[in-house]
């Protein structure tokens, strides 16, 4: 690794004339991706540096999304922040309410770039845009949840297609159980798939005020919607042994359990499509499908997951020029193709998706199936409750609900009691957040 770094460093110094190298404007980009994904980000940065000679982007992984957020805050407050920082969905609102960022549109206009903002996939841009629909940051790594299913196991129960409704899904799970499969579906008390995506796909409110977009005084509502029925169905499936909890504490996480062929279904991000392919049991046949809907209900677009890139305040005009050039670079369809080929993430623009389709990207074996994520995000026009979640302290709210799931699924509380108290505690978080930003209007 170090050798490779040194090598690439030497190479780039040889390639770039020394006089130019001295003139290059350096600026920092902090992100939260690690492992394979982190290496691809480094690769993207290198491609940008090689593509021009005016700027040099220095990309640093902070280890995780929360770390990137914490470290950027600490550095920004000490006036040593990076020019660009990657912020995950739950960190969006705090930054949006602050004066710490340069709006994406202003940045690009000031530096003479014309960006077609309508080119972004609506379900992606709306998630990160403010209440008026204006993007303040650049959607970067984007994903959504899909249903992964084991084709071999389904063949044993005489099925060749993934179930489309939850009713069908539970029937299939029962059949899989009867066919002798120990773990028909793996799951890990995660809120993203079963609460957030389910609510979006069925256009059910998670919180009032359009999931928070229309004001800081939003209140959680998830315990009053059809989601509760679904959660009870899910709990029953768990009690019947159709759904098994898989986590690092039990010895095998959901992804590993699916890739090893131990669990036959799972709801997981399309971002993991690549790593499942790389780590799967040899010869195992599997595919992805959109998350099922409840029978008789209309399908809406699912939520985007991932993070967006923000330009922070307090930098020199030259650094902003570099940042704008970088944003322009990653918005190119060629960059989208490179990014999606090397990660499981999906292109964020329509032109990027069309370009990749035209290149035949989605026809080839390892990438086939990832287009389902785009279909899922485009399943309907974005509506009030499917545009996203704009709630303060959302990391804490998610944790309260996750804790409730854990208690419900270990039979400590009933579904209703667990969710009601989680919502009550979550609302306390929202009220404290509202008070912290007293006098601020929702941007």
């Amino acid at each position, binding site marked *: 690794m170090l050798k490779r770094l040194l090598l690439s460093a030497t190479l780039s110094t040889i390639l770039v004339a020394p006089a130019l190298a001295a003139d290059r404007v350096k600026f920092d980009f902090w992100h939260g991706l690690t492992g394979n994904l982190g290496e691809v980000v480094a690769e993207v940065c290198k491609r940008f540096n090689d593509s021009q000679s005016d700027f040099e982007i220095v990309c640093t992984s902070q280890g995780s999304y*929360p770390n990137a*957020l*914490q470290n950027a*805050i600490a550095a*920004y*407050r000490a006036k040593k922040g990076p020019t660009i920082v990657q912020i995950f969905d739950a*960190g969006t609102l*705090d*930054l949006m*309410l*602050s*004066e*710490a960022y340069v709006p994406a549109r202003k940045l690009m206009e000031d530096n003479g770039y014309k960006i077609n903002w309508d080119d972004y996939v609506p379900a992606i841009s709306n998630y990160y845009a403010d209440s008026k629909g204006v993007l303040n940051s650049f959607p970067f790594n984007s994903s959504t949840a899909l249903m992964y299913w084991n084709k071999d196991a389904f063949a044993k129960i005489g099925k060749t297609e993934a179930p489309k409704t939850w009713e069908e899904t539970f029937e299939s799970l029962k059949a899989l159980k009867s066919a002798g499969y120990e773990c028909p579906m793996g799951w890990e008390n995660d809120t993203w798939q079963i609460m957030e995506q389910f609510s979006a796909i069925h256009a059910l409110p998670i919180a009032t005020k359009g999931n928070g977009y229309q004001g800081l005084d939003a209140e959680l509502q998830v315990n009053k919607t059809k989601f509760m029925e679904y959660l009870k169905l899910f709990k029953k499936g768990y009690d019947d042994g159709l759904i098994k*909890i898989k*986590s*690092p*504490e*039990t*010895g*095998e996480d959901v992804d590993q359990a699916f890739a090893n062929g131990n669990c036959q279904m799972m709801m997981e991000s399309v971002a993991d499509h690549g790593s499942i392919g790389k780590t799967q049991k040899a010869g195992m046949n599997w595919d992805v499908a959109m998350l099922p809907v409840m029978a008789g209900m209309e399908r809406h677009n699912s939520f985007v997951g991932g993070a967006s890139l923000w330009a922070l305040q307090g930098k020199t005009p030259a650094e902003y020029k570099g940042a704008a050039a970088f944003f322009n670079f990653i918005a190119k369809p060629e960059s989208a193709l490179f990014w999606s080929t090397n990660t499981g993430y999906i292109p964020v623009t329509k032109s990027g998706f069309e370009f990749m389709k035209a290149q035949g990207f989605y026809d080839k074996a390892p990438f086939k199936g990832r287009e389902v994520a785009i279909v899922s995000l485009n399943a309907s026009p974005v509506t009030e409750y499917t545009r996203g979640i704009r709630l303060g*302290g959302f*990391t*804490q709210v998610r*944790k309260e609900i996750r*804790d*409730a799931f*854990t*208690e419900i*699924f*270990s039979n*400590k509380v009933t579904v209703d009691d667990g969710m009601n108290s989680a919502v009550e*505690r979550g609302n*306390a*978080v929202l009220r*404290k957040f509202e*008070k*912290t*930003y*007293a006098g601020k209007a929702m941007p």
Partner: protein
Amino acid sequence: MEKRATFSKTSVGVMFVLPQILLVFTFFYWPTGAALYWAFTLERPWGGGNEWVGLDNFRQVFADRAYWGSISRSIIFAGATSFLSMGFGLLLAVACDRGLKFYQAFRTVFVWPYAVVAPAAALAFRFIFAPEAGIFSALVKSNHEFWNPAQNGYHAMTMIIVCYSWKYAAYCFIFFLAALQAIPRSVIEASALDGAGVLRRVRDIQLPLITPTFFFLLVISITDSFQDSFGIVDVMTDGGPAKATEFMVYKIYFDGFRGLDYSGAAAQSIVLMFLMMVLTFFQFRFIERRIHYS
């Protein structure tokens, strides 16, 4: 003639003290002061205004059932880990001090766990205790309810206590062994000549003579257990399942750094600081009186 060494000028003394004061100020008073200020305001994470709210943050913290839960869990954890780590540390130290077979080798080996960093130890123990993959999976085969730290809070707590005690038993071992070896051999030989058995010698001679070490370790163990559990909890359980291993320090970390509720976390750390001060005060006030420094 003046027996004590004194400085002729106050300024010389001040210069000697200055580096220390500077250090303590930078790394203790300044951050503590900032935390104290944040605890009485509502701090916005990205800066740009904070509002004075008086005791609101403290009121909120004390009105929260989950917070009281974290206090009682921290106290149970402190008690259990101090008891286990000091107990095992003492047992091993007495055995090594007696010069049983291979004691030189054991003396080295018993120290190692302390050199393992907490997250690494936690990773290893997470695997050992994993009901579907680790050593425990054999026990769980027949009955899944028997052991599942991913869903049962008591199991998760037990797992964390064992891991932490394993590491700190090594620490206690070092100090107990050093104390035992400092006891003059003649005292022990004399009692042996008088016909005192091994256990009798431990009870009547060795233990009373190492009480200062015992007291030192008690204070350190309890204080450390409140602060040092973080690395293990973060890797093994993330405070779960359903807050069952959420100690005071982990809650401060989660609310502050993950949840960006800086003010709530600041209030909690002030409470933790006072709790530590009170606990240490009580230990010195009531236990130290029974300690005899020779």
